[in-house]
């Protein structure tokens, strides 16, 4: 099958990397809760072409994360998509107690967790965290955070066809972007309990900085 796409945005590059990998190796699997429905462009159009390589999960994050290891032990290359990194944290056991330890025991574990973060764009206390720092401290994990669309493509292909567990983290604001974007300075964002107040504070500060009244 020839794949004839000219990707521009981050999401389109990720989509192409997934399509090429699914096409190239039937052991590549894409799993997650909403993977059939596009995930804001990441998997759009792929389920129709590769139905047998898609796994739809119930809202069971412990199972998603631990079954990724089982699939990999039995020879699969797994891409597990969490639409928020906060949801990945709901099923941490396998990510801390099993995957890194089995990797250290010498098992090839080609597992890529794609997670999005929404820090600084007004997504509230429970959709805004960036937990990737945790994984930099766990032995065995590789953390990848693409900063350009082409890097999004190459990093994902490397992860899928490599032999180790990878946390692939991408900021939600980059999905439709065709270029790198600087994140807002975290020192001007004030965390507070209610997301509405958080957003108000964020945008008021942005306006003040850019001189808009």
């Amino acid at each position, binding site marked *: 099958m020839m794949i004839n796409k000219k990707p521009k945005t981050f999401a389109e590059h990720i989509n192409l990397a997934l399509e090429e990998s699914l096409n190239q190796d039937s052991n590549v*699997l894409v799993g997650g809760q909403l993977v059939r429905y596009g995930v804001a462009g990441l998997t759009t159009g792929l389920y129709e072409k590769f139905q*047998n390589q898609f*796994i739809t*999960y*119930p809202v*069971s994050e*412990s*199972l998603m*994360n*631990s*079954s*990724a*290891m*089982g*699939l*990999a*032990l*039995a*020879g*699969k290359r797994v891409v597990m998509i969490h639409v928020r990194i906060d949801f990945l944290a709901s*099923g941490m*056991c*396998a990510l801390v*107690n*099993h995957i890194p*330890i*089995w990797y*250290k*025991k010498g*098992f090839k574990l080609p597992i890529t967790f794609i997670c999005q973060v929404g820090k600084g764009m007004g997504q509230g206390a429970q959709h805004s965290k960036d937990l990737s720092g945790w994984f930099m401290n766990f032995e065995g994990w590789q953390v990848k955070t693409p900063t350009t669309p082409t890097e999004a493509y190459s990093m994902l292909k490397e992860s899928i066809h490599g032999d180790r567990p990878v946390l692939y983290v991408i900021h939600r604001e980059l999905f439709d972007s065709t270029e790198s974007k600087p994140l807002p300075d975290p020192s001007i964002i004030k965390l507070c309990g209610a997301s509405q107040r958080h957003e108000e504070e964020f945008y008021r500060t942005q306006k003040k900085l850019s001189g808009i009244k």
Partner: protein
Amino acid sequence: MSLEMLEKIVSFEKRLQMNMSKIFNPTHLSLGHEHVAAELSDVIRDIDWVFSTHRNHHHYLAKGGSEEALWDEIMGKETGLNKGFSGSQAITDKSLNFHASAILGGLIGVATGAAYAIKLNGTSAIVVCCIGDAGTEQGVFWESLNFSSLNQLPILFLCENNGMSVDARIEERQSTEIEPRIRPFGIDTFKNLTEAVNNVRELRRPSFCEQKVVLRAAHLNMATMMDLCDQKEPIHDDK
């Protein structure tokens, strides 16, 4: 049931019991559970996968594991199954498709993932996921029941119910009997282990088998882990 396997497990565990003071990692003897594994050894095949728990010596020997490699692993030697890295609780043998973990219920989801891969691969292998009564208290167990029934995975959940979680009795922990809570998931339940294995093998359907057992040893090695539970070794006389 293989009497040879039964004797092999019991003599291995008793040999460990005599050498407890030399063991410096948490080690859980399977005395009292051995007949479950001996029956499993009759019906398990090389291509099958077995996932086990902190109490795993009987399962490993039943899968065809090496006594010597297991012994050396428990003793923390370089010549051990995982070079002494895993200890008794988390032994892994790639050549036998055998994995155990110290984290209670931690491999239930892993076993379910392996069963999904086996289904995709179209081989005749099955997965046996060994748990204890407390393993059913973990959320991922119920997630895995739902998912394996939804996708008709070739997996047997084998529950060795010894009624104890360290010192806590099952009556203190669980609301009702386990087995009637499993059936509504659309999972076949069995009292007989051989029938349960055959059901998974022939119908490629998830199944559940509960075996009530009495642990005839302390929860774990008492010589070096004395502070962890309120028991003495051995707590049951052999009958």
